[in-house]
């Protein structure tokens, strides 16, 4: 019994191997059957954060759509460089993908010496969400609007403190872009990720934080912090009373977190297209839209050509900002 089972299994394997070898010759045929084995989604962050959660959500939905398991592989460290480098060097067969975005594909390669070029190392599959920045302060602080912050900073330069989750984080870059545009001097207080900066804000030791909506939405809903402006183009559905940066007089303020799916460069176009089409379908599901919105992320289209322009634009924008503000890595 066992022997016959074994031999049958070996036989099937041989068949499969022959089939795969045969398919290798024909990119198109390969794409039609893709995926034939589990796909690894590299999340360059530790488990538990917004990136990880979004990666797991998208991975689960792609599994349902493509009939193969999408396995999350958390490879955190070095400001996402470790995880992104793994994908950049992975075989371009569509079985290792990157849950990339703000850090891995724009900011970190500017701050650190990366082993990959963010503009050429990846094939864009699609942008799946953006997270606007929300300026928050503690509930009974004197700052009601962005104008109050600017006036306070002009009266006492350097005495208004803003916290961030680290040098080069979206929170820091948002602060730097704002000080540049408002021509004021705020003091940057960097923290090592985590939530200590939020505690110091609630405790009144910091004045404001330019936070991502994914972090601040639960805090605002819980009444622990008060929003004073959002960086989205229009007001956020969750906080209709909070004005945008544009309404507050800063239309050029354009920092936001973003989340996108990338494959290694030279991945067959047919496979990239297949993934992109599936991603677009996933992003139309009401359940996905609701879950993304629930954590403060605005769903995007998932169209590859859109990401092909968005990523390099972001890279160029932050290269300039980081150079002008003389920001170093963290």
């Amino acid at each position, binding site marked *: 019994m066992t022997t016959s089972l074994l031999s049958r299994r070996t036989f099937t394997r041989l068949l499969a191997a022959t089939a795969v070898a045969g398919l290798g010759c024909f990119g198109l045929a390969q794409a039609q059957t893709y995926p034939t084995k589990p796909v690894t989604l590299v999340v360059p962050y*530790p*488990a*538990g*954060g917004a990136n*990880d*959660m979004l990666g*797991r959500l998208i991975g*689960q939905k792609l599994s349902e759509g493509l009939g193969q398991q999408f396995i999350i*592989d*958390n*490879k*955190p*460290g*070095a*400001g996402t*460089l*470790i995880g992104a*480098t793994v994908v950049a060097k992975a075989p371009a067969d569509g079985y290792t993908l990157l849950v990339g975005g703000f850090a891995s594909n724009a900011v970190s390669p500017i*701050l*650190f*010496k990366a*082993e990959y070029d963010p503009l050429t190392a990846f094939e864009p599959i699609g942008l799946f969400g953006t997270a606007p920045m929300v300026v928050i302060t503690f509930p009974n602080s004197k700052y009601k609007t962005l104008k109050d912050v600017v006036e306070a900073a002009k009266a006492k330069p*350097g*005495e208004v*403190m803003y916290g961030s989750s*680290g*040098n*080069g984080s979206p929170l820091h870059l948002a602060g730097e872009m704002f000080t540049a545009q408002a021509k004021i001097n705020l*003091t940057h*207080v*960097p*923290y*090592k990720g*985590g*939530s*200590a900066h*939020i*505690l*110091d804000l*609630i*405790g009144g*030791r*910091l004045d404001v934080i330019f936070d991502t909506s994914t972090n601040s*939405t*639960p*805090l605002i*809903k*819980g*009444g*622990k912090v008060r929003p004073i402006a959002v960086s989205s183009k229009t007001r956020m559905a969750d906080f209709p009373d909070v004005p945008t940066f544009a309404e507050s007089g800063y239309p050029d303020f354009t920092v936001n977190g973003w989340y996108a799916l990338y494959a290694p460069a030279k991945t067959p176009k047919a496979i990239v297209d297949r993934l992109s089409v599936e991603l677009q379908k996933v992003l139309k599901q009401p359940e996905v839209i609701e*879950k993304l919105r*629930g*954590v403060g992320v605005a769903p995007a289209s998932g169209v590859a050509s859109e990401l092909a322009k968005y990523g390099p634009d972001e890279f160029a924008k932050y290269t300039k900002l980081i150079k002008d503000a003389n*920001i*170093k*890595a*963290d």
Partner: protein
Amino acid sequence: MDLIANLSLGFATALSLQNLLYAFIGCLLGTLIGVLPGIGPVATIAMLLPVTYGLSPTTALIMLAGIFYGAQYGGSTTAILVNLPGESSSVVTAIDGYQMARRGKAGTALFTAGFGSFFAGCVATLVLAAFAPALAELAFSFGPADYFSLMVLGLVGAIILSSGSILKAICMILMGLLLGLIGTDVNSGVMRYTFGIPALFDGIDFVCVAMGLFGFAEVISNLSLKDKRETFTNKVSGLWPSMADFKRMLPAVFRGTTLGSVLGILPGGGAVLSSFAAYTFEKKISKYSDEFGKGAIEGVAGPESANNAAAQTSFIPLLTMGIPSNAVMALMVGAMTIHNITPGPQVMQNNPELFWGLIASMWVGNLMLVILNLPMLGVWVKLLTIPYRFLYPAILVFCCIGVYSLNSNVANIYITAILSVFGYVLAKLGCEAAPMLLGFVLGPMMEEYFRRALILSQGSYSTFVTNPISLSLLVATAGLITIMAVPSIKKKRQEAFQED
């Protein structure tokens, strides 16, 4: 009484068949990963997160919480039996627990750890139920200056109260500080001692240091003994503690629980700080302070109670404010948001069955863990009778899996290997690894808080003394140094204890 009504709602939820089952699964899994060195609750919970999609949010959180505090229980087992602290919070347990095991009291040490954890778990659960909102406010009043002073107290305490030569202890702490400096500077973003290696950008992981210095170095030292291998495995005496043991254990458990319940609320390493603090405190006030480092039962009872109490109260910032105080709590936030529950103060009002059910399940879970672990005592102790030629390779393999799984990076294994050689050299030189570990953990945090306090005060050093919490902590530090510096006080203290 609101509290009683709430708790009865909680127990009604926690005692439903499904929730009991998942609490049990969580506790069992937690114990297992705790026993396996290096595989921590963070990785386990992250992997199981998708499994909880299909469960009700209450059941999901009950199971995940079970993994977390189950791991605290299990972690002490390997620390005591083979001197391998798998979690940062069980480092100090290894010091005296392992010495107890060497003296044939492994069973007693394990019992003490289990009993202390259970007692602390029960008390901390009550604290959580009764004072959660009030305690959360305490965390807000702790600013960077206060954290800095707390750590100064911890470091000075560690030097003064270390068992061996003070000079060596200071050197080891400085060595730990240096190791802790590796990585990116938070304030300026400058790389320190990274040599351009990406794996070092974020510094060396604590688990690598603990594994290398304690576990691997221990294995190497034992192998180098050749024929004179320790045979403490043969003289395992009774599993149960004697009355005398109980009398010494109980007060330590009380003190550890109190300390842990308070420090657990602080974000970032509350459990670690509390176990170090409890150890230092026990050693300071114990009549048997000369026994510390050689197998004092208080050295197991205090820290183990403290870290379990802290594990429980670290839920307070999460449940009342929606602010995760450590990586496990961050995962809990993830689990809640998956189920469309916004963590924060509104959970208590909107989902009372979740809030109180989770709290009640912690008590139920603690009870399960005791029932699960006590009969296992004999089995764990039997592990020591496994011949070294099987035990050591197994330990090394599990450690390698553990450090690799920290962030799926092979570099961690190399780092651990290098550190283990270093640890072996230290052991040969008669230097204790514990102060070094303390320096490694506290040093970088101290620097971070010190510089942040100065940024916030615009460079004014007075912030450390104008702040009442910080000031009182610094005064306590000064007190410790005085006791240390004035030999006559020290002498009198010893005499006083002898007269007892």
